[in-house]
């Protein structure tokens, strides 16, 4: 018997649901399942844990495992050290640098961390600007960029904005009375922060810190560029590229990475559950901003200046590197040139075009999928529709390199219909990997846009005779346009700097997008200049995209607020 609700679901809705599900299965669920199966299957196809035994039996792998944990945890810790004081400063004090901090919050994100790594090497490395100066004047050097701690340094600088943004929002949502009640009962200063303010903003902090942990744990590009290969992601990469696609250890590492991503997200979800501490009520006032003492103001400005200097140093370094003729063993380049940009435009204009094409198509695919899923979930009674959201969002937990391994494994030997070309040998595979990995971002934007759209607007159109499809086209899409565009831009810019799936899926230099090009250039000392120039172009693309999405979001917020008021 068919449940009554199902009959109201039209054939078109079923078809749309089937298409989305088909896409997700073919390009996400099956490749990842393939990775799991390979990790748990013996040569004779029986279930086994022997590959995991082999993994933990090797000292090298055990070390890679502990190294990855160490780097991810320490990065989250140092990112917190950078972010927590900044968040508290902006929310709790009358501080003129607040706007500066907000800007500061976005700057690191517009540059892929592996690009920054090279620049940071030149500034903070053993023979970088800082250490050369320290050596000359004080006779000491700081081993900032050495070994794993170098990776921690680069990752913390890059990812601290996630904590800053989440914590700032959480702090802003605390009702001022929460603080006053504590003051009235005798709790003040650091005790007030420790007993009331921080616990209340903990959910925001945990959300940010777990995100940093996952991102760092899965990061491939940064350790590779820094020559730190004894971490899980680089080991998986090396296994697949050097030992081969049949080597089970690459799959074991993939499963471990997914496991830790899920565990970190589950842990943060557990902490967050039942703890919506945003106590601010309608009409209530937030935490009171207080004046900084003179010394406090000096310390705060010094801290902000220091963090700003450090977070801007990769940008500055890349910019300098891209115009440096020679830059080694000196605090600043010896001579300047624009030669590298000419080189990049001559040699690598294909890469720029590739990035635009792959990311553009992937982002387009994402918003089409995003709008469809959002519509199916929020506006139809398609059975089990929540699963579409669940599956699409699950791709957040899958590192790029794992998805790429899954693609290579699943589509091994499969050719594009009618030709001799391997699917995994075409750029389409790269584009699809981008689309799958960035789908959660686009989906969230589309869901939010549709949620804000009052259903009465659609009902009005339908009561005036518009069919379902025409209602979508004439009412919903125009009103959702801002959200859709924001989703497109987010997908686009994050895909433009993605390296970990790219690096495995690029099978010919002609297919390489900018991110891969930067990585290739950075491999050799002579390629650093052009690599940096390409990096500057990538940053420019991302920066313009970020700004555009910001503008679009601002503008549409006005539009939807207008609608809500009327509704």
């Amino acid at each position: 018997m068919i449940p009554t609700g199902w009959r109201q679901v039209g054939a078109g809705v079923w078809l749309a649901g089937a298409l989305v599900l088909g896409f997700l299965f073919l390009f996400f669920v099956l490749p990842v399942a393939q990775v799991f199966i390979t990790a748990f299957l013996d040569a004779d196809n029986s279930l086994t844990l022997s590959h995991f035994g082999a993994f933990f039996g090797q000292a090298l792998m055990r070390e890679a495992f502990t190294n990855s944990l160490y780097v991810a945890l320490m990065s989250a810790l140092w990112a917190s050290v950078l972010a927590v004081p900044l968040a508290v400063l902006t929310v709790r004090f009358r501080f003129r640098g607040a706007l500066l901090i907000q800007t500061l919050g976005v700057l690191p994100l517009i540059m892929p961390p592996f690009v920054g790594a090279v620049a940071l090497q030149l500034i903070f490395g053993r023979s970088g600007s800082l250490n050369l100066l320290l050596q000359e004047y004080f006779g000491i050097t700081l081993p900032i960029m050495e070994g794993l701690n170098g990776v921690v340094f680069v990752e913390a600088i890059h990812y601290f904005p996630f904590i800053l943004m989440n914590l700032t929002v959480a702090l802003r949502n605390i009702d001022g009375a929460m603080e006053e009640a504590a003051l009235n009962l005798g709790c003040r200063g650091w005790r007030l922060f420790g007993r009331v303010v921080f616990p209340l903003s903990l959910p925001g902090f945990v959300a940010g810190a777990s995100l940093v942990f996952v991102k760092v744990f899965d990061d491939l590009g940064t350790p590779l560029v820094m020559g730190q290969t004894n971490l899980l992601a680089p080991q998986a990469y090396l296994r697949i590229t050097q030992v081969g696609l049949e080597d089970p250890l690459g799959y074991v590492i993939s499963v471990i990475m997914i496991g830790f991503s899920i565990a970190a997200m589950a842990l943060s979800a557990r902490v967050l559950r039942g703890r919506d501490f945003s106590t601010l009520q309608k009409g209530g006032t937030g935490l009171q901003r207080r004046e900084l003492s003179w010394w406090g103001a000096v310390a705060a400005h010094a801290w902000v200046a220091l963090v700003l200097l450090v977070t801007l140093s990769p940008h500055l370094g890349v910019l300098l590197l891209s115009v440096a003729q020679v830059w080694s063993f000196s605090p600043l380049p010896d001579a300047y040139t624009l030669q590298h940009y000419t080189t990049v435009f001559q040699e690598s204009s294909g890469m720029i075009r590739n990035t635009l094409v792959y990311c553009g198509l992937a982002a387009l695919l994402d918003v089409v999928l995003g709008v469809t899923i959002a519509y199916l979930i929020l506006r139809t009674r398609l059975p089990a529709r929540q699963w579409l959201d669940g599956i699409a969002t699950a791709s957040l937990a899958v590192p790029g390199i794992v998805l790429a391994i899954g693609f290579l494994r699943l589509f091994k030997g499969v050719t594009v219909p009618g030709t001799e070309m391997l699917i995994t040998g075409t750029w389409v595979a790269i584009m699809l990997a981008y689309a799958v990995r960035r789908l959660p971002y686009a989906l969230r934007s589309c869901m939010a846009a549709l949620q804000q759209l009052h259903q009465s607007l659609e009902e009005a159109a339908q009561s005036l005779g518009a069919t379902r499809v025409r209602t979508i086209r004439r009412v919903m899409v125009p009103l959702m346009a801002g959200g859709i565009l924001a989703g497109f831009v987010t997908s686009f810019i994050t895909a433009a700097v993605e390296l970990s799936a790219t690096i495995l899926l690029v099978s010919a230099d002609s297919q390489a997008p900018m991110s891969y090009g930067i990585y290739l250039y950075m491999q050799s000392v002579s390629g650093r200049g052009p690599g940096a120039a390409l990096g500057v172009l990538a940053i420019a693309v991302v920066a313009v995209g970020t700004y555009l999405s910001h503008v679009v979001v601002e503008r549409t917020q006005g539009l939807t607020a207008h609608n809500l008021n009327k509704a």
Partner: protein
Amino acid sequence: MKKVSVECRDIGLSYGVTEVLRGVNLSVQPGEFFALLGPSGSGKSSLLRLIAGFNRHTRGELRVDGRDITALETWQRPVGLVFQNYALWPHLNVWDNVAFGLVERRVQKSHMRQRVGAALEMVGLSAYGQRRPSQLSGGQQQRVALARTLVVEPQVLLLDEPLSNLDKTLRVQMRQELLALQRRLGLTTLFVTHDQEEAMTTADRMAVLDQGVVQQVGTPQQLYDQPANAFVAHFVGTMNALPVDHQGAPAWLCLRPHHVVLRDGPQAQDLEHAWLEGVVEDREFLGACTRYRVRLDGLAGWQVAAARGIAPAAGALAGNPFRVQVDEPHAAGRHQRDPGQRVRVGLALSEARLLPR
């Protein structure tokens, strides 16, 4: 416990150029349950927060038990505040919320357990220690907030709109509980409200505030019977005010609705009432009585009043319609007057008050 007084002398508070309080004088007696009543923006909440130590007054003196506490921080004042939204910390359970202030006072573990237990018992929530605030009803949250404040034994209790977040039936019950608790503890208590019924039913004495100034202080009965000015007259209870001239000076003739009577036919002049004519505009059935709104034809034809030196205000004769509200006692089956019906309206002049206009 020692009962203490609270005294405000000429207290002024301004934010920049906006004057929130303009010379407030109040004297709350030891052990009194005192209401601060006023419309929103009158400065009543600012005054409460000022006594709690969250706002700093820009002039004047604030004394508790004769001691000037102006310079003290909120945690140094012997004053406990219960917030309008209760401000229970969602990350702590009920027990830890109540124990919070004792932890700050470094109270011994065993002693603390006993005091928190006693406080929760006092508000009838002994079994709820392990619950989170979000798992409690509004009334229970209110009681936790009360226990949290009382457990540190303040000398003065401040309640900011204590009942405004509760639904109506609960409000009446909580009102009585609050009062019973205050009586038992004998704690000097100030509470802020915009609800005149709440203030009148509970307070020993009350102050009516408007525009940062205390308009009148007294028992609820004094304020109801002898309002000092038109604002108090309108804010405490319902009041009819008609513009008149009293011995040549402009005044309001103020009468409560139950001091006005309605008659159908022509009525002999008497010495008690001034009789006017009008039309019933609408009615509200209130149960014990029916409240009519009557549009008067005018204030002309008012001979009796003249004997008391009262004449309709000069401008009032120009034909502006005046309305009075009349409460007619209700008994089962009694016929109600319909809108449009002409009536004679008798004003009981002996009950009227003349207030400056």
